[in-house]
């Protein structure tokens, strides 16, 4: 096992609220949170339901950002500062960096311009078009700072890249996570691809029809475990290993072989065998193709070992694209803390093609092993997998 990376802080803003506990409670309720998009009517599109953050929360987040039309920047500042606060980590005096992920940062200004909602309003330098400016400049970062975009795997890739930077000695601490703001352009794209459903998102169900788009942000504070322990930091969980791959194949359809490569690399780097994994927070989008491909990939990666319980949080949280992997990682941390995986809501009849898997339902079984695999995949065959555990396992006492 390579040097573990400790997660020492979390900042979150989501349709479920602004704390990890409110997120966990939201998952436990398993309610259908879909509604109309409040920003404007979507009558032009076949499917117009989303899971969005409340207008009150948006007003609060945007309070200090009146001059900006890039809501991703405000959302990033909100969650980054809370992650640092949660970790009890001052930026000054430490080599701290920030790697954020987004598929829509910078595009909002374009959308507003096309829809003529900001004509003449902004005439300064084109900051709002440069997504790199969502890394909050209020902190004097002296470590790596970047904004990446690897489609819907972005929210897991960013923490992975931040971990690599820590292991390379480029920083003492890193903030990393996914930031996603719902835009009409995204809603248009998923409608055009026929991947958005007017029904509830139903991962692994035989009648699953697709995704319900959502928004939000989660940022994590990451430090090498030995560094975190030395400063007495709160340790929310530990990243044991991660893997990344590209299918190099179809633009939208995942290739199980490519996905399995990422899972195998995550397991190999974690130093754990598949038998040590207690559960899987799946990408689980609820599209007919994704769910079958993901299970095929898991079967290929686990080989003869029986698959552990599998769950998806997207029936409740929706699909927040670049933030989705970060929300799944947060769910894994909370599952390790509570000893229980969140249920896959919306599941009525398991797809017969997946009948041999154990999809977590109702309150879910107790987590029997203290390591969880998290998956996130994106268009273009971008795959990322991560093994997280509680601190005891990483120190060899688990």
């Amino acid at each position, binding site marked *: 096992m390579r040097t573990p990376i400790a997660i020492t802080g979390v900042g979150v803003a989501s349709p479920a609220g602004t704390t990890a506990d409110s997120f966990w409670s939201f998952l436990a309720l398993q309610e259908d949170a879909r509604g109309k998009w409040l920003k404007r009517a979507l009558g032009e599109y076949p499917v117009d339901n989303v899971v969005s953050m409340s207008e009150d929360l948006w007003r609060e987040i945007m309070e200090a950002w009146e001059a900006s039309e890039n809501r991703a920047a405000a959302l990033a500042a909100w969650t980054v500062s809370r992650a640092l606060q949660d970790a009890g980590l001052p930026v000054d005096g430490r*080599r701290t960096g920030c790697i954020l992920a987004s598929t829509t940062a910078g595009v909002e200004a374009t959308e507003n*311009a096309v829809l003529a909602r900001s004509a003449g309003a902004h005439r300064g330098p*084109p900051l709002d078009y440069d997504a790199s400016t969502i890394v909050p400049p209020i902190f004097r970062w002296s470590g790596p700072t*970047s904004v990446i975009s690897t489609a819907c795997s972005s929210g897991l890739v960013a923490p992975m890249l931040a971990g*690599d930077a820590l292991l390379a000695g480029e920083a003492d601490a890193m903030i990393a996570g996914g930031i996603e703001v719902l835009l009409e352009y995204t809603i248009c794209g998923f409608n055009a691809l026929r991947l958005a459903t007017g029904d509830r998102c139903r991962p692994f169900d035989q009648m699953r029809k697709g995704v319900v788009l959502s928004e939000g942000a989660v940022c994590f504070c990451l430090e090498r475990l030995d560094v975190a322990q030395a400063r007495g930091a709160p340790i929310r969980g530990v990243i044991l290993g991660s893997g990344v791959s590209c299918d*190099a194949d179809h*633009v939208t359809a995942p290739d199980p072989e490519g996905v399995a490569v990422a899972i195998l690399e995550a397991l190999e780097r974690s130093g754990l065998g598949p038998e040590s994994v207690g559960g899987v927070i799946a990408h689980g989008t609820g599209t007919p193709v994704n769910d079958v491909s993901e299970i095929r990939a898991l079967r290929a990666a686990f080989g003869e070992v029986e698959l552990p319980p599998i769950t998806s949080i997207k029936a409740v949280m929706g699909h927040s694209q670049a933030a989705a992997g970060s929300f799944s990682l947060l769910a894994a941390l909370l599952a390790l803390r509570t000893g229980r995986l969140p249920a896959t809501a919306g599941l009525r009849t398991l797809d017969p093609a997946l009948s041999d898997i154990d999809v977590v339902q109702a309150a879910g079984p107790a987590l029997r092993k203290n390591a969880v695999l998290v998956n996130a995949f994106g268009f*273009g065959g971008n795959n990322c997998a991560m093994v997280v555990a509680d601190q005891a396992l990483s120190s060899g006492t688990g």
Partner: protein
Amino acid sequence: VISRVNIRAAAVVSPGPDGQLSDALLIKERRNRKVGALPVKARMVLEATRRCLQKGDIDPTSARKRPGVSLGTLCGSMDVAEQSLRTVHGAGFAEVTPSWYATGLPSATSAIVASVHDMKGPNLTVLGHHAGIDAIIFGCRQILAERASAMLAGGFDVPNESFLARFHSAPEYAEVTVHGGAGLVWLEEDRGLAAGMTAIVGWSQGILDERAFQAGELSQLLRLAAGGIPLSTTPVVHRISPARHGAVDYLAATSVIYLVESVIDSGAPGLHALCAKGFGPSVSCLLLEKSSS
């Protein structure tokens, strides 16, 4: 442990004074068996990839460990957002082509390059005006982390209409010429540096305000790029930011095109530091060593 990363080959695609992306700057193929219709920016980056692989006599599939792709872009999916929304609110949703979204995502170009050249390693896209240098840094990190033994890395952009309108509405950029373009390097683990070749020997990223950047106050970034120790040789420092005086701006390709043309292809032997800043305060720095021919 790999301590440096070699640049085995480099290539650019940049249009002439008229800014047109002529057929000579795009690969001939308009469709690909795996990808389908290829957007213009992907055809431009594929042409830069073809030139880069040809220059280095590189077969990506022969790399020791699966090679990856790491590209930077400023405009990303803005052109597709414009096209989609104008179509919906003009001709109607039924006229939107399903493939626009997936092949127009910021990350789609790097994924298309990977598909066409069967590169199954890490596939990264970085956003921002200085993202071309960021993408090279991420490429180096992937090699150091042993997630790939080689990476195709660099920057590309094709400016979209609303970005250009905003850009040119700012007085400091009103007269700046912006063109599409691409600059790529092939990075691989160090196996000794041949004559006339360039290696990346360090990098750093940080925050610097515009005044400090323009004043050349880069000592902290250079020290970090050198691994925290003072440099024994003073590097030739190159500063790249939006709209350098008298230069065409290629957005996220700007700094990589400069790197290829002014350091890799024609720079003097010795140590160079290339520092790129975007519209915000983020600055990325590459420390390069060029050997004698």
